[in-house]
């Protein structure tokens, strides 16, 4: 997917400016505006490149002193002698917690979006949409505190229940009973945090479904659910996917909420109810204070991996949107 990004995306953005500049009448305002916008575009690229350069420079320094394999080592001990650290656990934890968050959040978000756009009475829809959007404005540390003080004790019971009836699934087998400071809790918290983004973008997309499509379906005798299934969902699919990717981007980089809720431990386990694991952002936040100079570089190296991961997810999202544009229902 990543390899096709450069081929697919560049033709799209340059097209509109080219068209506009050719029709420019050469007025001063146009020139200034064109200069300003291309200037800020270039500035953005320069900033991104310098961030990448800084990360790569410091990361190279750390990786050259690593006595383990940076990709596969299950340990993080840059202050040890010899220093040994690797990102395997962090990569695993980041991906697993984000997947749990997506699995929970996306169906709920689509449901809320459909309810607001197609089922709720208009008087209820607007305030409801507003409330969901407000969730996005709550700082992540507040989610973290709420998670640690309310969600964690509350989920203890769910953990026991899951372990009792679903331990045969392996992932819900709790081998180390205890407080629910585990990947599942992190996933649930992240799901709540990404809900507003996914919901509001999906709702926006569902509201854009051509009225004619819906009316045509209704005229053919479709029920409201059939209208949604046959016209709203197919039309909105690309929008929902890009909304989910935006949510995923947030889940991948979430720091403080994960740091307060998770019991970090350097191990990889698919037992979601066992404490342990870690994510890139959480690890950086937790280890930065007491890290020695090499430790900081090592954390920056792990940050570089997160940077790349987020970049991949975002370009994948752009790619899907760009590709879907041509095949979406409106053109048919």
């Amino acid at each position: 997917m990543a390899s096709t990004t450069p081929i697919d995306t560049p033709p799209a953005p340059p097209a509109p400016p080219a068209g506009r500049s050719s029709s420019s009448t050469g007025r001063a305002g146009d020139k200034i505006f064109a200069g300003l916008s291309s200037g800020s575009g270039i500035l953005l690229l320069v900033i991104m490149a310098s961030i990448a350069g800084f990360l790569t420079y410091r990361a190279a320094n750390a990786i050259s002193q690593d006595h383990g394999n940076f990709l596969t080592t299950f340990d993080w001990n840059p202050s040890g002698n010899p220093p040994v650290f690797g990102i395997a656990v962090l990569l695993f934890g980041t991906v697993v917690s984000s997947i749990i968050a997506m699995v929970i959040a996306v169906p709920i978000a689509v449901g809320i979006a459909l309810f607001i756009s197609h089922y709720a009475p208009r008087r209820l829809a607007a305030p409801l949409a507003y409330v969901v959007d407000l969730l996005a404005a709550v700082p992540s540390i507040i989610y973290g505190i709420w998670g640690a003080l309310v969600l964690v004790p509350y989920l203890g019971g769910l953990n026991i229940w899951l372990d009792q009836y679903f331990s045969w699934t392996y992932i819900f087998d709790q081998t180390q009973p205890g407080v629910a400071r585990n990947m599942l809790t992190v996933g649930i918290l992240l799901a709540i945090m990404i809900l507003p983004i996914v919901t509001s973008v999906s709702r926006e997309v569902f509201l854009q479904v051509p009225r004619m499509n819906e009316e045509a379906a209704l005229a053919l005798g479709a029920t409201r659910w059939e209208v949604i299934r046959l016209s709203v969902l197919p039309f909105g699919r690309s929008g929902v996917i890009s909304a989910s990717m935006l949510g995923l981007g947030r889940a991948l980089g979430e720091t403080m909420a994960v740091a307060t809720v998770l019991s970090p431990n350097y191990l990889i386990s698919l037992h979601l109810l066992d404490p342990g694991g870690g994510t890139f952002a959480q690890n950086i936040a937790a280890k930065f204070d007491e890290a020695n100079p090499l430790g900081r570089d090592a954390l920056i190296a792990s940050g570089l991996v997160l940077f790349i991961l987020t970049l991949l997810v975002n370009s994948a999202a752009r790619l899907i949107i760009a590709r879907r544009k041509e095949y979406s229902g409106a053109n048919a």
Partner: protein
Amino acid sequence: MKLLRKNGLRATALGALAVSGALVLTACGSDDNTDASSTPTKSDTATSAVCKDAKGQLLASGSSAQKNAMDLWVKNYMATCSGVQVNYKSSSSGEGIVAFNQGTVGFAGSDSALKPEEVADSKKVCKDGGQGINLPMVGGPIAIGYHLEGVDSLVLDAPTLAKIFDSKIKNWDDAAIKKLNPDAKLPNKPIQAFHRSEDSGTTQNLGKYLSATAASDWKYEPEKKWPAPGGQAASGSSGVATQVKQVDGSIGYFELSYATSQSISTVKLDTGASAPVEATSENASKAIAAAKIKGTGNDLALDLDYTTKADGAYPIVLVTYEIACDKGNNPATLATVKSFLTYTASADGQKVLSEAGYAPIPEEINKKVQETVASLS
């Protein structure tokens, strides 16, 4: 088509807004180290600080384990010597030592003594053939806090403690714990052991204690990083204390002040003395008194005796040092460093410590610290 473009534009705009919003929101977490000590009007704490030629600004940096003590000292000192501004940045011991060896601070705070290579580095900063020396200034007990409904008093010994933290003993009604607490009603409940998630001098000192007293049950090197698998982790002493406070059936370790401020019960240690020892400032001082000075010359690095069986000596202790040059200190700050450290090592300065949950350095060692501080040049 038109509709779609508008939709796409709006969706991306919304998305961009959401992402930038998320970025802004996640970029929080600044650490405010400024203290509310800006009102040095307290004349009732007339200290014995001698200001002499002390003046201007004194920068210091290092261990966060002595932060609360340092805050008190700075407040009291500046109340007397109003012409001096002391700034102690509590970061970490490692950072303090790096700053000291770069010559950017007057002295550093550290929870472990200088390593040989750090002493070698310090010779570049200390002129006239001087070098960095360790001055033990703050002691403190590391309490083992627990939370177990129905059990008000709990006695443990080193091997049991090692097995609990190594997940070998998993239940509160284990025979080993029962044997030490014949009168307690121990419930059949899993033990949840909490440790620090980040590197910490507290972890290292507990490790030193366990490997000195229970070598067969604790086979890990005493490191700043928590070595044993299993158990749950929390960030910082405050994080561990919060979890212990919250979770029934839990046990964890932190500086005593966290236990007293959150009223968490602490474990009494069966050290082999006539009675189990409680974690108090006084008992910690008694254990530090058993320490030997292992530093040579002016260096007063301590060799703590973790295996002490003296009555009332609580052996899980942390000693933090102030690090300065014995000779060739920066002439611009020398007078201030001397004046400030003279105060912290004075009887008055040490007395303040027990109020903050720390332990004063025992008199015999403290006398040497005072002499050494007076000889700094």
